[in-house]
């Protein structure tokens, strides 16, 4: 599926130009922001340590957060699985007689498949982030963590709006945005429940934070009677100072901003001393496989990720295949690591293996997470199998080839014999201009778009011995 969807994406010139535009804009802009921080260049390393500390002490952090939110009149629910989280939300909706839901953009609700579950109960759900709204109308999946509709052109959006909203056709982005605003305003006013994610929580203050650039999350979380916020259990900082540093870095990573346009701190429902806000506030803290990641030192680092999407904006693979090939809410390098960890390493083996290990993601990450290291660790599990992660060894033929290779590689005599054989065989291969045009399996993929330099008549080692190490 990965390869097939990837191939389709590569053949789509509109998507290719959108991806290259996105990476060309955001990649360099984020990189230049990192260089100019008042705290100096080690802010990112510090923030990594803050995240690591929070993850290492997650039990205490979450209990503190839950206590504070409860003190403020909010309710906190711990959900072990995706279906638990969905059930909690459906229950709240039923108790509050909810018919209309507006949503702020949230990847974790994508992860648990919340929209479908709400709609199956006859509840109308409207995404309110412009990009999410577009793909919801189109019946598609987000293709970028931060820019979910990056794969759609303004012409496509114009046609979509005409068809679904009945607005006159235009491909003018401000007019399209205005059309969406008008349609969404009615939804906001009619909604009885707002659903949001949580970019980061703070244990010390007992609040969750949402960030948007359209103000839609603020409306979705304050206008309706009920607000249900979903947070991955790892999204927490110990104190406000650390929270602020991480939040700023997240904004840089996500959209090359010093800080997102609308940042809301939410600690509970409306109260006598502050009238704005919902009548009831629920925080659903989701595990859904995160405890298993937490328990494995090799992958615990992944829980430090804040899903800003900075790695998508520099990844050469994402830059060609876009988000849909990853088949998950989490795409790009972060998806390549976190999707296998959450959903099964064998099931997502293409995600672990379909990268070049170029390391651009690590450099772009506002927290300097070592994604390539974790990709390698996942690949090692696929090679040998791993009972702890229920991984079965993958691709026996490849493993066998490497076992044979290993034998040959450890013995220069065999190695040289094989090279001699290779020189004979390569003479039978189609070639032109001293380059091989077609290689046999397992190398045939190479020559679909490339020629191959043939083996030299003599290895350097032979030349060295012949010259006794003297001048060449």
């Amino acid at each position: 599926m990965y390869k097939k969807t990837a191939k389709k994406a590569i053949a789509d010139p509109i998507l290719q130009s959108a991806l290259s535009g996105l990476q060309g804009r955001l990649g360099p802009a984020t990189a230049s922001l990192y260089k100019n921080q008042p705290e100096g260049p080690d802010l990112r390393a510090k923030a990594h340590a803050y995240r690591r500390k929070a993850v290492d002490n997650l039990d205490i952090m979450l209990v503190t957060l839950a206590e504070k939110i409860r003190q403020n009149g909010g309710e906190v629910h711990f959900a072990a699985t995706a279906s638990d989280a969905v059930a909690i939300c459906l229950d709240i909706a039923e108790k509050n007689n909810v018919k209309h839901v507006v949503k702020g953009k949230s990847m974790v609700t994508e992860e648990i498949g919340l929209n479908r579950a709400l709609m199956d109960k006859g509840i109308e759900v409207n995404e309110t982030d412009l990009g999410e709204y577009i793909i919801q109308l189109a019946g598609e999946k987000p293709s970028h963590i931060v820019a979910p509709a990056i794969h759609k052109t303004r012409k496509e959006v114009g046609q979509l709006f005409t068809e679904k909203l009945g607005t006159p056709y235009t491909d003018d982005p401000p007019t399209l945005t205005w059309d969406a605003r008008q349609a969404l305003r009615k939804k906001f006013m009619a909604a009885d429940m707002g659903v949001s994610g949580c970019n980061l929580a703070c244990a010390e203050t007992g609040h969750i934070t949402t960030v948007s650039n359209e103000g839609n999350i603020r409306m979705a979380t304050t206008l309706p009677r009920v607000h249900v916020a979903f947070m991955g259990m790892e999204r927490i900082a110990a104190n406000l100072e650390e929270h602020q540093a991480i939040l700023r870095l997240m904004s840089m990573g996500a959209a090359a901003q010093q800080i997102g346009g609308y940042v809301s701190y939410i600690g509970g429902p409306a109260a006598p001393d502050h009238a704005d806000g919902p009548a009831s506030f629920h925080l659903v803290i989701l595990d859904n496989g995160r405890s298993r990641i937490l328990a494995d030192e090799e992958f615990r680092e992944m829980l430090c990720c804040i899903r800003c999407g900075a790695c998508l904006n520099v990844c050469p693979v994402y830059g060609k295949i876009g988000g849909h090939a990853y088949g998950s809410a989490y795409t790009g390098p972060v998806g390549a690591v976190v999707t296998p960890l959450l959903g099964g390493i064998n099931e997502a083996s293409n995600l672990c293996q379909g990268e070049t290990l170029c390391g651009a993601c690590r450099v772009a990450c506002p927290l300097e997470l070592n994604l390539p290291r974790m990709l390698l660790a996942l690949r090692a599990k696929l090679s040998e199998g791993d009972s702890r992660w229920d991984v079965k060894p993958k691709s026996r033929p490849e493993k066998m080839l490497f076992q044979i290779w290993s034998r040959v590689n450890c013995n220069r005599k065999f190695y040289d014999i094989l090279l001699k054989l290779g020189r004979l065989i390569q003479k039978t291969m189609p070639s032109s201009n001293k380059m091989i045009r077609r290689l046999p399996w397992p190398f045939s993929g190479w020559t679909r778009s490339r020629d191959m330099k043939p083996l030299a008549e003599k290895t350097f080692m032979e030349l060295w011995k012949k010259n006794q190490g003297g001048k060449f």
Partner: protein
Amino acid sequence: MMYKKKKVTLFIQCLVDTLYPEVAEAMVSVLEDLGLELDCPTEQTCCGQPAFNAGHQREARAAAVKFIELFEDAQVIVSPSGSCVNMVRHHYPDLFMADPSMLERARAVAAKTFEFTEFLVDVLKIENFDARFPAKVTYHDSCHLNRYLGIHHQPRKLLANIRELEFIEMKDPDKCCGFGGTFAVKYADISSAILEEKVQNIIDSGATVVTGCDMSCLMNIQGMLSRKKAQIKVMHIAQLLSAK
């Protein structure tokens, strides 16, 4: 300058050994011109990087053991390939985390292994080789060399001092070429799409030669340039430095 007195042991990337021996010859010629004494363990084969990157750590470990046994008595080890040096410097120790005695040996070998341009510029502190190469040249930053070893200005300094060489920076010189070891074969379509962009940037630069410090990326680039019948030569930086 203490390294000037040391014997340099050549660690030749397997692709150079078997496909591009002229690259190793060029490196030898540069090092010999400096009056350095050279040594080359001719039993050496592949460092294990392709196996390691594909997840086959057991097979990579066997290659690492062989390498360590072969090279641990060396005074200083120099290689014309950034990714192989990264393998030895960073991943050999990773492979022996559970074996303290091998870990120590791996670390000792890692500490004395250098990439060719790093060795020239950072260790020997030599940036000018009195080379002459009259051509328009562009440089590809190999990912492991650039991001994992931090080598990017060293080769540019060396190129800047080659007489009659006109250096042209291509667009996104540090963007991956799409090679990625077995990735290029297993995910050939994705690899090709990434390479396509790299090759276009090289062609657009107007250079007649593309150079770099790792033949794996350069082999990938050469493969597509050849398929496209582009009249651009692919050369390792050692070949430019040894040109008179």
